[in-house]
């Protein structure tokens, strides 16, 4: 027959006694499994423990004689209230009608105000943040982050000392103070 005999051993009868060759291959499957498990563990723990620093500067409260005047028409005041709501207005507290918004909507408002002001006057928007007692720490971080996202270049003023009566009244009426 023309077929090649591929079967090993089989037909040897009474040949030389050969020393058996030991198989040198080790099954690495379990080892690789373990290695990958550990890799996954270390990858996850290292990437999670990298905190980010958000630099903020608060106004110096000692030198009250140095006060910066802001143009009312270029100033957007954002009041942080409770229940994750903000109230914002442009210009002065006496005349303005504040808008109540959530943290997801405020980004659009900031961008709109910024663009409107830039188109009409070519000037940059100044933002004043006023966190009230009802706000949480997360709210504060969120609003600073929104300013970073909307690319507000002017340094935001963080003012938690002088919350005007008009602002307080409005926030009380809206139920967020």
């Amino acid at each position, binding site marked *: 027959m023309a077929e090649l005999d591929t079967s090993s051993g089989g037909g040897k009868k009474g040949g030389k006694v050969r020393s058996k060759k030991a198989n040198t291959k080790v099954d690495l499957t379990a080892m690789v499994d373990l290695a990958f498990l550990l890799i996954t563990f270390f990858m996850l*723990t290292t990437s999670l423990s990298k905190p*980010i*620093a958000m*630099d903020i500067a*608060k106004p110096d409260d000692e030198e009250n004689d140095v006060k910066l005047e802001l143009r009312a028409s270029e100033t957007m005041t954002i009041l942080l209230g409770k229940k994750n709501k903000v109230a914002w207005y442009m210009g002065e507290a006496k005349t303005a009608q504040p808008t109540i918004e959530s943290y997801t909507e405020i980004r659009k408002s900031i961008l709109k105000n910024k663009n409107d002001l830039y188109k009409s006057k070519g000037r940059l928007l100044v933002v004043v943040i006023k966190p009230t007692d009802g706000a*949480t720490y997360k709210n504060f*971080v969120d609003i600073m*982050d929104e300013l970073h*996202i909307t690319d507000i270049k002017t340094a935001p003023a963080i003012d938690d000392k002088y919350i005007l009566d008009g602002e307080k009244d409005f926030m009380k009426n809206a139920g967020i103070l």
Partner: protein
Amino acid sequence: MPRAKVQRKSTSIDMTAMCDVSFLLLTFFILTATARQPDPLDISIPASTYKIKVPDKDLVILSIGKGKLFYEIIGNDIKGATLDKMGEKYGIKFTSEERKRFSVLGAFGAPIGDLKRFIMMSSDQREKYAEQTPGIQADTTGTSELDNWILETRNAVAELHNEPLRISIKGNAEEEYPTIKKITDVLQKQKMNKFSLITSAEGGK
């Protein structure tokens, strides 16, 4: 006629290369991993899109959670020097062993009177202690313990490294703003108007 023979192939693959690569990666990750100190306060930090990493020296981390304040100094030499200065200020003598143990401690929330006891505790005891302790006291008088800790840490950093001290605030997301304000007021009393908030990285932009 000969039958068509299906050739049998071995199903086992040579895993040597794969094993090599995976162990190389494993070694890399083990070496770059930083051992994390256990956090005594259960804090979930808010997320932000900022990209600046927290510096790893000349830094103080103020952890705020459950209305308590915990203080953490980064850098073992600074920790020891600060403890010496605080001991001098409050008239408490710390032994060299206590100084050594304090140098490797993470965040602590023990009032100065309790500090000696706190240093000698085991880690289990410290965990329990973190539940009961009122944390480090802070008020606006300018002489509270937080004021002194910050003042002495600033001195220690200035003497040893000739660098300004950086302050980071690690606050729980649900903490109310007045608690944070109280801490920042203490810092501002010492003319430290710049500080950083520790946040986690947010996905996306």
